[in-house]
């Protein structure tokens, strides 16, 4: 079966700085890949290339085996990539429904916003997918008043609504309580069960190990190693991570 997503020999230069060097990365159908690496290793750059925010300096991107040139954010979203960013990606002064449909507003046949439908869908999603009770959620409430977990829920619901094939989670557990974190990890497991794929980025090796099928370790802009989580114990993985951080390689 074709990979859902594949990057071949992708590099990204910012001026003189090699943020990414000759990265090969693949994401299978129905697979959760954990991305690990230190601050500044290039994890964020990598996902911003997948989401179309940055264009790679060189290299090729394939979606379901099809080469895609000049990937932009709207194009990536069309191709089924949705991203759950850290909470900074919400517009805090705006209402819940505006945040859910941020950048992909629903319009009627005349091209005007279908506000009623967006509010209804927001209401439905929050109750159905996030388990909010109907009194606690109001599509008109401002996102700035929400807790960390609720905000993350908004970002996740956004990915669900647009029926993403590839869900990218950028440090989704940051600022979450224990209970909210557990809920989030369950959600990531749910992505796999639904036959979709995900890239999960986190500092916390325990979280990544718990949900990922495969772990890709990035260091100084290169892929330093890959492990199938079933084949490596958590202790071994941690030992290897420390080794990479000290020497830049596994051996």
């Amino acid at each position, binding site marked *: 079966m074709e990979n859902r997503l594949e990057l071949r020999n992708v590099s990204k230069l910012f001026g003189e700085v090699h943020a990414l060097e000759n990265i090969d990365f693949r994401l299978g159908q129905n697979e959760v890949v954990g991305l690990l690496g230190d601050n500044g290793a290039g994890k964020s750059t990598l996902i911003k290339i997948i989401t179309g*925010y940055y264009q790679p300096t060189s290299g090729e991107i394939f979606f379901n085996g099809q080469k895609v040139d000049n990937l932009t954010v709207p194009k990536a979203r069309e191709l089924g990539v949705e991203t759950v960013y850290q909470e900074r990606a*919400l*517009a805090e002064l705006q209402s819940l429904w505006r945040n859910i*449909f*941020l950048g992909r507003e629903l319009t009627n046949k005349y091209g005007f916003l279908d*506000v009623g439908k967006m509010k209804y869908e927001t209401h439905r999603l929050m109750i*159905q997918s996030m*388990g909010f009770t109907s009194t606690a959620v109001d599509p008109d409430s401002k996102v700035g008043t929400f807790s960390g977990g609720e905000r993350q829920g908004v970002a996740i619901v956004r990915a669900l609504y647009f029926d993403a094939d590839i869900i990218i989670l950028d440090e989704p557990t940051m600022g979450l309580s224990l209970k909210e974190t557990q809920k989030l990890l369950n959600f990531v497991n749910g992505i796999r069960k639904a036959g979709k794929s995900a890239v999960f980025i986190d500092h916390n090796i325990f979280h990544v190990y718990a949900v990922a099928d495969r772990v890709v370790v990035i260091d100084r802009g290169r892929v330093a190693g890959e492990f199938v989580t079933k084949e490596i114990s958590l202790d071994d993985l941690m030992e290897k991570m420390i080794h990479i951080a000290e020497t830049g390689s596994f051996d």
Partner: protein
Amino acid sequence: MTTIENTSIPPYKDTFSMKKFLRSNGTVLGIFGVFLLLFGIFILSAPGTFLKPMIYYAFMSTIPFFAIMAMPLTILVIAGEIDLSFPSIMAMGMVAFLLTYFQFQSIWLSFVAALLIGLFAGWLNGFIIVRFGIPSMVATIGTQFFWRGAVLVLSQNKNGSLAYAMSSPLQQILVGKLFGVFPMQMIWLIVIAILCWVLLNRTRFGAHVYLIGDNAESAKLMGVNCGKERIRAFMLVGLISAFAGVVASLHVKFFWPSLGDGYLLRTLASVFLGGTSVFGGVGTIFGTFIGAFMIGSIEAATVAVGLTGFWTQLIYGLIIVISVTMHSFLRRRME
């Protein structure tokens, strides 16, 4: 997906509750309250003036000149930008109007030329700001001087009578009197206010304006073309400013190279008085509408109440400071 529990969803209706209404319209209601209070004071202190329709016709005749521009400016300020060059664009549009008239003797063609130059001036503002990343406050100080300079050079600082436009239907349509009493510029203000409301609240452009003003980074991450939308907002201000320039000039049937001077602060004051946040992301067209009428009525009212004209600025200052403080307070309360 396993996280989707098959719970039955209670039907959603956009329920109306007083609390919700107050919360989501707090700033608008606040400014409306100040507006009513202000007119209450006017009526009590000068009933002879404020209980007769004449003063209201006068307001409807003069306020639209700057209130028309305050509408697109509200959209721009919500997007987190500002334009200080619109008074010069007003005058530049009229220069294009006159030059085109001398060439072709067509009022309609002149009108179109004025609007086009306004659109271009707006695009130029947006282009400089987006392409070179210059803060809009700085860039539009520059273009404000540039366009005023262009007006002075092209017109040789000469005034011009617009008497020839008197017989044109355009004059009747823009600044005539509906049924012989109702000023047409007021109708245009209402039309432009409604158009701007629709743009802001019922189009993707408007939705993006709110998002860009609130969190431009997030809008960009979600695929909004921030540069394009900001340039559009500047073009809208340019277009409407040129339109307002034509309306104001046809009203007095005369072109002054200083056209637009004196509109800058009262237009901006209308926007901020109406509850639009200078930080972007928040604001309403209705608030600006009310704000413009407060700004526009204070001058006449101070005189009618029996104070000298010298009091006007002091009262402007008081009302603006009180209102803006009130908005800030209400906004914090609602969070």
